[in-house]
């Protein structure tokens, strides 16, 4: 899992561009399967049908620019039926009808194409929603009655507060909290992660289960926390389907701009007719409508909603569910990222980096003792010590079967091994080991404190190792900064995004990691409550803040942040407070989300620029011809020629 994560990042870095990076990353982790993908086969047929359905004036009226085109199409259709409808036309009626018919035809397809763009964008979300819906089916739930017996009811009859029992092989009927039992659950339906997840009560993160996932082993008693139709998957379906889609503030602003442009051109074109009549160059209604349609920004008008929907879709393909388009857009405007150190900036686990001998011992001796103390340690830290010790040519010189492991406890803050020859080797927090050594009659040298300080200054965690009353040295456990993060923070800085790291570590350690990762600011010895203070402080300076979180105590901060991304492994409270949920529970994704949001804003800006620039060009392509058609331009050039000749003759 960890190596998988690391190998994915460099690719995200080079192409932080939605779908491309996803497809390239999928073959590095073959076990990864992203959110259930529906077949995109019928997507285009469906979109073509939708494009015609959307010609309904009730739909078109929502898009001012395209509604003008819609009305224009109706009018040109009328003049196709009768070219003389609005006034007698001098030209041959049959030819005039052909021209008007052609204009009607082209305008009609302009509308259809614009609707098609929106339909394709929506269709991708709908296909995803269908795939999700297929994972959710009515199941039989075993409801726990007060007298302890169970009753089989349909999962749709479950209410918040009910308790249900699920056994291996069952579908979990609703969202809930585990109250009893330990079991592994397959959550691939929503996360795409095929490895099962362990669920147990009492823990903040591991006790929440999602309806529609499958329990693989053992049994659980679950307290239902959502009413039917309001569970996580239901909300997800509603979101990806775009049922709750409303215009974002930026879209509204752009709509107003486009409407003003449209209105100005409508007035201009409406007054062209009397002017043209005044200069004895009457134009036809169809030509005027063509001019109007060419002038108004139809390109961006037709693509505006598609861009917004596609942005949400890109986020969904990233396995992140956004509660609104507003949230996706806000990602692009973010000024400050608040990041947890552990799991986001550094790998979750610290790894042994170096042995520092004290009291005249050699590195090999320290390695030997550290290895002996770690053979029973199954934690990633312990394993990394074993690997490092073996690199230092240490080997286990006793029968592990005869030795007994001593587990780490929060009270002793040490772990180790009781060797077959009666000796006790320990490793642990420096002061805990000091106490152990003193209790065995040993003395603590100042060398140990020096080593301790050296490691702290390097940003690491020191672990002392000892055998009975003799301290051998210190293991330097290093926080590993995720690969490629420094470059990404540099990128962010160039884009004007500030990063703040939050950590529970002491000032020295935090500053070292901060420097190594290249974050702009850090807060050491932070409590979860500090998060919300940091966010408030930044917001009071007019900045938009994004953060990630998973615990219940993160919920207020998630709600306060402009963009709060909850981990799917997190608690229900966190998920409800956030405006995005990351199904892969990968906090580093926040950086990618900023990229996607910025990309959305840039795309919209670029296409608006393009569309308006186009209008200028179209104007110069049409206006001369209208004047020319009425003989105005040739007559001017003629008179110029006459003038020339006259001056020549003179």
């Amino acid at each position, binding site marked *: 899992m960890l190596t998988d994560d690391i190998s994915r990042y460099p690719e995200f870095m080079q192409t*932080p*561009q*939605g*779908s491309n990076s996803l497809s390239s990353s999928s073959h590095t982790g073959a076990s990864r399967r992203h959110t259930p993908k529906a077949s995109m086969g019928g997507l285009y047929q469906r979109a073509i049908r939708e494009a015609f359905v959307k010609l309904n004036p009730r739909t078109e009226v929502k898009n001012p620019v395209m509604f003008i085109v819609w009305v224009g199409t109706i009018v040109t259709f009328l003049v196709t039926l009768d070219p003389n409808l609005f006034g007698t036309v001098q030209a041959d009626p049959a030819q005039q009808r052909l*021209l008007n018919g*052609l*204009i009607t035809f*082209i*305008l009609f*397809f*302009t509308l259809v*194409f614009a609707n*098609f*763009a929106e339909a*394709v*964008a929506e269709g*991708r979300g709908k296909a995803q929603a269908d795939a999700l819906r297929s994972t959710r089916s009515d199941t039989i739930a075993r409801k726990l009655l007060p007298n302890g017996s169970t009753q089989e009811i349909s999962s749709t009859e479950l209410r918040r507060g009910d308790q249900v029992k699920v056994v291996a092989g069952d579908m979990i009927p609703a969202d809930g909290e585990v109250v009893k039992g330990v079991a592994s659950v397959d959550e691939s339906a929503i996360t795409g992660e095929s490895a099962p997840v362990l669920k147990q009560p009492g823990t903040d993160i591991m006790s929440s289960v999602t309806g529609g996932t499958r329990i693989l082993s053992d049994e659980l008693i679950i307290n239902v926390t959502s009413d039917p139709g309001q569970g996580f998957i239901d909300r997800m379906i509603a979101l990806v389907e775009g049922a709750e889609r409303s215009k974002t503030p930026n879209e509204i602003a752009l709509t107003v701009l486009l409407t003003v442009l449209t209105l100005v051109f409508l007035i201009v074109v409406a007054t062209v007719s009397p002017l043209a009549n005044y200069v004895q160059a009457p134009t036809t209604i169809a*030509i005027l409508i*063509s*001019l109007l*349609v*060419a002038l108004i920004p*139809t*390109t961006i008008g037709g*693509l505006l909603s*598609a*861009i917004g929907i*596609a*942005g949400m*879709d*890109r986020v969904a393909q990233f396995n992140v569910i956004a509660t609104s388009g507003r949230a996706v857009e806000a990602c692009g405007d973010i000024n400050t990222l608040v990041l947890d150190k552990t799991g986001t900036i550094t790998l979750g686990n610290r790894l042994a980096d170096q042995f520092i001998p004290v009291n005249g011992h050699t590195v090999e001796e320290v390695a030997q003792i550290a290895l002996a103390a770690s053979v029973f340690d199954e934690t990633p830290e312990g394993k990394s010590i074993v690997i490092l010790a073996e690199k230092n040519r240490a080997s286990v010189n006793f029968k592990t079967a005869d030795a007994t492991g001593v587990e780490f406890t929060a009270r002793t803050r040490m772990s180790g091994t009781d060797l077959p020859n009666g000796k006790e080797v320990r490793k642990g927090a420096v002061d805990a080991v000091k106490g152990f050594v003193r209790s065995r009659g040993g003395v603590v040298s100042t060398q140990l404190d020096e080593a301790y300080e050296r490691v702290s200054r390097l940003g690491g965690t020191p672990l002392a190792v000892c055998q009975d009353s003799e301290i051998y040295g210190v293991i330097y456990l290093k926080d590993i900064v995720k690969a490629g993060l420094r470059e990404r923070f540099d990128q962010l800085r*160039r*884009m*004007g995004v500030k990063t703040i790291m939050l950590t529970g570590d002491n000032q020295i350690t935090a500053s070292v990691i901060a420097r190594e990762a290249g974050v702009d600011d850090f807060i050491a010895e932070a409590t979860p409550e500090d998060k919300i203070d940091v966010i408030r402080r930044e917001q009071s300076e007019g900045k938009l803040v994004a953060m990630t979180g998973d615990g219940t105590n993160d919920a207020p901060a998630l709600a306060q942040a402009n963009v709060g991304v909850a981990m799917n492994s997190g608690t229900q409270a966190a998920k409800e407070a956030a405006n995005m949920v990351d199904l892969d529970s990968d906090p580093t994704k926040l950086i990618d989300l900023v990229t*996607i949001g*910025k*990309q*959305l804003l*840039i*795309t919209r*800006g*670029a*296409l608006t*620029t*393009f*569309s*308006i*620039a*186009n209008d*200028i*060009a*179209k104007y*110069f*392509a*049409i206006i*001369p*011809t*209208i004047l*020319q*058609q009425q003989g105005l331009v040739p007559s001017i050039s003629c008179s110029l020629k006459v003038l020339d000749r006259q001056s020549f003759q003179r």
Partner: protein
Amino acid sequence: MQLKSPRSAIISALIYNALIIPALIPLALKGVQFRPLTANQLLRRNILIFGLGGVIAPFIAIKIIDILIPFA
């Protein structure tokens, strides 16, 4: 622009106007290529590509459509 006739000019402009929408659908759905630049650099770059491109492209496209369509 030396187009065949006024009528052909209007039809060409409208055809361009209609076809540019589906032509830009892939760009709208995928998003423009993202580069980590400062806001000013981005603005300059995009105005150059999409602004200048947006002024020039229609002239070329309308001319080509004008040549392609059969009637005068």
